[in-house]
């Protein structure tokens, strides 16, 4: 085919694109992740949000299971104990492995009972140290904030919405933590652990589900903020997580007047 006189962009930045959809015609645009060139056209090959930066078109996926990536912090569940480590379900197509040396610095004798550290059914916050081409996934719990988790509740969300749930520099999750009085850990794999009062946890879950549904719309932070304020529950002293300032039991006014940390008030323009 001869070179077209004019290249044409058929999709707008931040619009949803579906596989097989023609995103642009002509040779001036460049296909990046989630797109490919078919003759004179650039087509999407994944369902996602289009991103057009200069001449480069890519798709940011919005659906599908968690693709394990090195460096990600995930929440996992111990599903088996082997000779030299544990098998961990990390909510993806492949189970992960954690070797004894990635679990503890203690000296372990040969043949020692490893359930001393982690038992089947335990949940952990872990980091992915390696993913091979054959999808062998290695985990570690050695590192800042990585550990076994106790109590609380686990929910599952779309892994592609995790960045929005966390927010810029953690602003979104910080806001949810503060309004609901819950301790929250968001795993990149879409598993989220919450610990607070049942009312607080339920409100946090509702807020998170709302983010999951509306993450691609603008003004998300403000919407979530007003949702949380409207449905605020009283935070009891007993279940308050560490690191959250005291809130008075009595009034909404008291908590509204409390200055939010800087990053939390910033409206999310993305």
């Amino acid at each position: 085919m001869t070179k077209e006189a004019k290249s044409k962009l058929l999709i707008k930045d931040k619009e949803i694109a579906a596989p097989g959809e023609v995103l642009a015609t002509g040779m001036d645009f460049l296909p990046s992740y989630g797109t490919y060139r078919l003759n004179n056209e650039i087509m999407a090959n994944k369902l996602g949000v289009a991103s057009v930066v200069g001449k480069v078109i890519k798709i940011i996926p919005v659906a599908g299971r968690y693709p394990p990536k090195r460096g990600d912090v995930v929440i996992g569940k111990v599903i088996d104990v082997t000779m030299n480590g544990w098998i961990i379900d990390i909510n993806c197509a492949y189970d992960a492995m954690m070797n004894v040396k990635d679990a503890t610095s203690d000296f372990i004798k040969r043949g020692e009972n490893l359930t001393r550290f982690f038992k089947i059914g335990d949940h952990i916050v872990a980091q992915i140290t390696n993913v091979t081409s054959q999808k062998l996934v290695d985990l570690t719990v050695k590192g800042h904030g990585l550990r076994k988790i106790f109590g609380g509740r686990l929910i599952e969300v779309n892994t592609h919405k995790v960045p929005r749930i966390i927010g810029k520099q953690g602003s979104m999750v910080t806001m949810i933590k503060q309004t609901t009085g819950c301790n929250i850990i968001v795993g990149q794999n879409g598993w989220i652990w919450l610990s607070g009062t049942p009312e607080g946890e339920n409100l946090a879950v509702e807020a998170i589900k709302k983010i999951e549904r509306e993450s691609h719309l603008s003004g998300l932070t403000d919407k979530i903020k007003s949702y949380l304020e409207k449905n605020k529950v009283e935070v009891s002293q007993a279940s308050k997580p560490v690191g959250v300032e005291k809130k008075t039991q009595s009034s909404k006014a008291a908590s509204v007047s409390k200055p939010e940390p800087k990053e939390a008030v910033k409206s999310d323009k993305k």
Partner: protein
Amino acid sequence: MTYKKRYDGRNFDQMREIEAKAGVIDRATGSGYFRIGKTIAYAAVYGPKELHPKFMQNPEKGLLRCHYNMMPFSGQGNRVRPGPNRRSKEIGLVTQKALLPTVNLENYPKAVVDVFIEFPQTDAGSRCAGICAASIALADAGIEMKDLVASVSVGRVDDKIVVDLDYEEEAHEQGGTADMPVAIIPSTGEFTLLQMDGELDPKQVKEALSMAKKACEEIKQAQIKALKDRFEVKK
């Protein structure tokens, strides 16, 4: 006598009314709904997930499995006995072959993607509706696909080449009928499903296939719209 007017008044190249939706089954990784006339298909995708037993795994790429099933009350006559039969197994197979060329599972060695297609109500053209629903479901499950697959049945009723035969037309007696379900990759125009029963001459096949292509382009637009509508926030 010739077939002058279709039973339901459609034009010869006109499909029945189409309705497509995505994300209709929460528990699934991805799901789709496709209705053409009175034929209704639901499809749910589960996975990719590790495939067991292990000897069935392909170390180079993921496996796609398709399962076709009619609900017991979905048939035109008597109750359909639940459970697999030769017909449903064959349709499962051709459905998998229809979808596979567009799907890229190279990133999922040793894994499997299961597609379950169920029909609460049928009125001919179920395998095509199933493929359309499954294609939506696969995209909704975030699977990499170079295109959606659109599928429709074309054929002959008496002396006319028609698109999307319904049950009544399939049963048309005078002059006989031929039914040719096809699936198409719309962007390349390639066929991924092609079956036929009845009598057609080669010229008629050619004519029918070109009608199918036109119809499939229309179906693809409905599929894309369904996937986009999933992200409309209901007020």
